């Protein structure tokens, strides 16, 4: 999933300052799962904003709603007819959702209420971990299903570096060294031969591309 965190309230208040009528829109998918932009968070943010407006005697009218996804047109379409009644949208989606909504309604400012972070997993309640950078060339099978691009601070394909100690990464003693995990899991799986391989330089063009990447699937088009 795509993870995100809500911006500090002060920043959001400053962002909506020029607007009187604000539509607060959440997204029930990824950012709902990571408790940053789902229905519950939309409700909380809406009341916090109204409370602040009352305390500072500012004129503010808000309405809250949550789309199933903000990055897919058929769901965004639910805003049609409603959005025109507002000066701005405060979006609790990831950056992709904010931009998708803005593309459909280019004349209304869509304000980002979240800081989009990373592709990750929910490890346990209240803990999300980054584990994929979308490099476009997945090689997890060579590294015991532990991503060196994401989880090694130096994205080493032939690790670990000399700083790996007691299973921890030199960069942050709270973070496990990805290569320590790779080596021990390969050992457990009896796949140590994979470690002897010298892996060639990565093809980052699949990640960096020539500007933004795109996927075209003719079989999906109608």
């Amino acid at each position: 999933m795509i993870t995100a965190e809500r911006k500090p309230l002060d920043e959001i208040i400053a962002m909506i300052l020029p607007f009187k009528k604000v539509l607060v829109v959440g997204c029930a998918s990824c950012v709902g799962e990571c408790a940053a932009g789902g229905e519950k968070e939309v409700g909380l943010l809406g009341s916090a904003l109204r409370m602040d407006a009352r305390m500072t005697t500012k004129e503010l009218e808000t309405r809250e709603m949550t789309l199933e996804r903000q990055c897919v047109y058929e769901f965004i379409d639910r805003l049609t007819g409603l959005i025109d009644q507002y000066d701005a949208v405060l979006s609790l989606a990831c950056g992709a959702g904010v931009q998708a909504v803005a593309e459909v309604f280019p004349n209304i400012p869509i304000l980002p209420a979240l800081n989009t972070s990373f592709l990750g997993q929910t490890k346990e309640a209240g803990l999300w971990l980054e584990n994929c950078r979308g490099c476009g060339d997945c090689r997890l099978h060579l590294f015991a299903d532990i991503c060196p691009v994401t989880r090694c601070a130096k994205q080493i394909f032939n690790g670990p570096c000399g700083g790996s100690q007691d299973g921890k990464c030199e960069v942050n003693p709270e973070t496990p060294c990805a290569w320590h995990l790779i080596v021990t899991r390969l050992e457990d799986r009896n796949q140590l031969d994979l470690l002897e391989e010298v892996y060639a330089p990565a093809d980052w063009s699949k990640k960096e591309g020539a500007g933004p990447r795109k996927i075209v699937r003719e079989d999906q088009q109608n």
Partner: protein
Amino acid sequence: MKIESQLKNVLAAGRFAVTAECGPPKGADPEAVIKKGRILKGYVDSVNVTDNQTGVVRLSSLAACVLLLQEGLDPVLQMVVRDRNRIALQSDLLGASTLGIRNVLCLSGDHQSFGNQTQAIGVFDLDSIQLIQTVRRMRDEGQIIGGEAVSPPPYLFIGAAANPFADPFFYRVIRLAKKVKAGTEFIQTQCIYNLDRFKEWMSQVRDRGLHEKVYILGGITPLKSAKMAEYIKNQVAGMDIPEPLIRRMKSVPAKGQRKEGIKISIETIQALKEMEGVHGVHIMAIEWEEAVPQVVEQAGLMPRPTV
């Protein structure tokens, strides 16, 4: 006449090599480099020049190497993959060779979060092993990454680092084997304080026959004080100082601790000289270059060969 790597000459002649380290200054100051070079000249075969070590901005390694070359030293250009992508790295390899630099040491580099530019992006386009492979292909096959020809190719003696003290231990020698497979010709190790662990590592190295494929230079850093020993133990990743050594440093009054540090270094070198497969030492006396001549002399490593 082609300038040759002195380090390579000494090692190829079967002599016990000595290298040292020079950290460039935080400023556009040639004198600082030249001064360090002059302290080391005659006592070592080659001098490593660090590349923005610990992520701190310093005079460039390449520029400092040229200054040392002009002083008649044989510099080892340290290159980290943290700050440059493959275009810049390959370009600098050509540049270094063109300027007469004959040794390169391929490193990952300390993470940028340690230095004074913590908001920088870490490049890490290649890793250190891929850099070794890249230099080797450029030199021996005249090809850059992707297969295009470079002519004439760079002429460089290729080195890398190894840390016998990092974890997981059983894997350290596998990683060394990978570096050898990628094309490294010499290895400089992390500072050796735990001789037992180093011995164990060397025996694994010999079991794999790696000591016959690569020259291994043991890392030496003379301790300045008991405090430094404790700092390294507690704060520096990938370094291993056994407790008895710290006690030994502490048992000496503060005034005599530098001398004791040098004594420990000399004892370590003597042990390394006896170890099969160790081809030399790399003395990293950080901001204490004056210690190098003393260590080299007292360890019986003078005069340096003229090969």
